[in-house]
């Protein structure tokens, strides 16, 4: 029975072994216990013995090959003739992994002065390239900041070190580059074909001799004159930290209480559960229980128009219809038309609120619970003595209508996320135009 000769596991933690030499040749007769080959591991060099009697055949690995443990490197056959059989494919994958993995030769780099990753700390092997301040092809002066580097200690800016043009950037933001490696090439003349690469395996120190950039004149780009820029300090953030027990925080969260208010009131920290009692009895702030949307930056737009147009239209309409005209329906119509024209929503929902109640347009179907947010709340406060207001953003954009003498004031309030600036302006302008000249709406 043929017996496989394998690369044995010889050390305590060994993945592969280097065949130093074969001590037998293909076709040689071997006996169990004969030394077949010499293998080198991380620890030592040792002879590997034949585990069976027979003839050494099918030798698929040569001296100098590094073979994973467990791979077959030869076969001990019962006859020498077996050696004549077609040998299996060589164990190519294991041969000189460094070469096998080497990348295609990089394209020729432009000539110029090399800018290297500087050693900035006491014991620093690499630097993290945070960002490039220049792009390939940019003109640079020696003092211009070329890139930003982060080490274990700090972040600092590295100047170009040469006047000229960025001919090549050899690393990308986010790459960690060994100290001394080229990261850029500055050319004296404007480069025809500026290049950009990432720091690949070739940027590793062992590959340095083959680095094409090595042919360029190296210069240390910086004497690290740039002062170390401290990373954002945490001390500043401590200002806003509220000291409170975990239980206090949990209960505050559950009850919707804001511990910051206790802090603002100068209540001594750390807060404990008993302090929540104080917080509960503090007066409500501002709009109090309004939705948290208000925290977002709010828009506040207003417009004034004469009430004549609307009054005239209503008089005409009443005459035409022999009776009442529902003003809410009319205003909702104006609003729907204004909204439609700005975002193409064919069927916007308007909630019209008056001092007496609210009505939704179009009316919701019976099975459609009206708990969905309207696209716009139209607050008709003409009957109130208010002549202006500032309420802050609510769950939906709010358009408020107040009247003073013959002037109608129209105010739109919404969160920045609800309507963009253009839409908000357009909505107010459109609605104001319709109020001023209602017939335009009919047309």
């Amino acid at each position, binding site marked *: 029975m043929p017996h496989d000769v394998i690369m044995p596991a010889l050390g305590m933690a060994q993945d592969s072994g280097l065949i130093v030499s074969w001590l037998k040749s293909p076709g040689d007769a071997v006996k169990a216990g004969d030394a077949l080959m010499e293998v080198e591991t991380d620890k030592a060099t040792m002879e590997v013995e034949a585990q069976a009697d027979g003839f050494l055949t099918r030798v698929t690995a040569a001296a100098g090959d590094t073979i994973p443990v467990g791979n077959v490197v030869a076969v001990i056959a019962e006859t020498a003739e077996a050696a004549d059989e077609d040998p299996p494919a060589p164990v190519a994958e294991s041969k000189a992994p460094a070469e096998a993995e080497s990348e295609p030769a990089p394209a020729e780099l432009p000539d110029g002065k090399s800018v290297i990753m500087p050693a900035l700390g006491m014991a620093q092997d690499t630097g993290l390239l945070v960002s490039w301040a220049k792009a390939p092809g940019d003109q640079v002066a020696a003092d211009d900041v070329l890139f930003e580097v982060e080490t274990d200690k700090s972040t600092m800016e590295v100047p170009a070190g040469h006047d000229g043009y960025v001919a090549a950037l050899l690393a990308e933001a986010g790459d960690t580059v060994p100290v001394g490696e080229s990261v850029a090439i500055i050319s004296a003349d404007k480069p025809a074909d500026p290049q950009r690469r990432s720091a690949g395996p070739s940027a590793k120190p062992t590959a340095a001799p083959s680095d094409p950039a090595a042919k360029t004149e190296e210069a240390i780009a910086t004497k690290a004159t740039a002062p170390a820029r401290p990373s954002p300090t945490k001390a500043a953030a401590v200002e806003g930290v509220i*000291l409170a*027990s*975990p*239980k*206090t*925080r*949990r209960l505050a969260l559950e009850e919707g209480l804001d511990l910051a208010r206790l802090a603002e009131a100068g209540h001594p920290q*750390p807060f*404990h*559960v*008993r302090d929540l009692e104080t917080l509960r009895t503090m007066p409500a702030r501002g709009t109090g229980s309004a939705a948290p949307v208000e925290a977002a930056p709010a828009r506040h737009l207003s417009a004034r128009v004469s009430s004549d147009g609307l009054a005239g239209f209503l008089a005409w309409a009443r005459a035409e219809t022999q009776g009442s005209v529902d003003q809410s329906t009319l205003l909702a119509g104006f609003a729907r038309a204004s909204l439609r024209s700005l975002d193409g929503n064919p069927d916007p929902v308007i909630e019209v609120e008056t001092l007496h109640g609210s009505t939704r347009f179009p009316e919701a179907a019976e099975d459609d619970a009206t708990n969905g947010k309207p696209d716009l709340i139209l607050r008709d406060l003409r009957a109130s003595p208010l002549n202006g207001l500032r309420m802050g953003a609510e769950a939906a954009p709010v358009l408020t209508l107040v009247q003073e003498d013959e002037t109608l004031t129209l105010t739109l309030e919404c969160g920045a996320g609800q309507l963009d600036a253009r839409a908000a302006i357009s909505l107010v302008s459109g609605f104001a135009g319709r109020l001023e000249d209602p017939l335009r709406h009919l047309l």
Partner: protein
Amino acid sequence: MREITLSKAVNEAIAEEMRRDETVFLLGEDVAEAGTPFKVLSGLVEEFGTERIIDTPISEPGFTGIAVGAALTGSRPIVDLMFGDFLFLIMDQLCNQAAKAYYMSGGKLNVPMVLRTNLGATRRSAAQHSQSLHALVAHIPGLKVALPSSAYEAKGLMKTAIRDNNPVVIFEDKLMYQDKAPVPEEEYLIPFGVANVKREGKDITLIGTSSMVQVAEAAAEALAKEGIEAEVIDPRTIVPLDEETLLKSVKKTSRAIVIDEGHQSYGVTGEIASRLNEKAFYHLDAPVVRMGAMDVPVPFSPALEDLTVPTVDAVTAMARRLVAGEMIHAA
């Protein structure tokens, strides 16, 4: 109910179990006629003879290993280790052999063995006869660890330990041997992993082990006079640990101090405090505080030794600060 000493309670437990089960025997140094230096076992050799109350040479690893072998082959040995400090001598036999046999054999061999030893400082015995080393063995999976806090627990836990199918280490507080407590005449066992709520309260939980249960109870008494209601809990076994009872209490009181006579660093107090932090974090209104023995070898001089262990005053003061909402160890 009658009151007996802790020493007598241990003696009774062993005698009852030896009468009940022929496979139980005891071995150790000076256990027979001498009845141990603390006289805990006095009288047993008269009843059971030197075949079952076996005096050994001063060879702690040897007789511990012998107990492991006996336990593997149908006996239920009780090893008497004269001082807890000698645990360091028997680590291989206890931790590599006894603790791992059941696991390494895939559940085919087990070691029903009890190692009774002691803990506790302030006996003016210096650093090699005063240590409380229960955390050391509680760290090793496969060992169970019981810490009786009175004569009642000492008897009930010892009987349970002898019947357990695993290696159990029982630490008696050597200063409590003469302390009396009510112990029923009739037989009882105390299950492992069931904590004892010694006193109920709503403001803070004091978790004490072994002799520190007395400290916690005295502190609770002092706090009560100030209107602070402390709950006192004795876990009774730290492996297994009755987490449920501890968590329930801490969720109620929002505050806890863990008091144990082992060194504070890397010890029982830290383990229990850490579990409370992990599992009751959002119920805590104050940091869980550890109060263990100082991280120094136990000194001989009374002037120094007394400083090293948690005291009633220290526990009371700490509880007061926690309930008042003071910052503990603020920067």
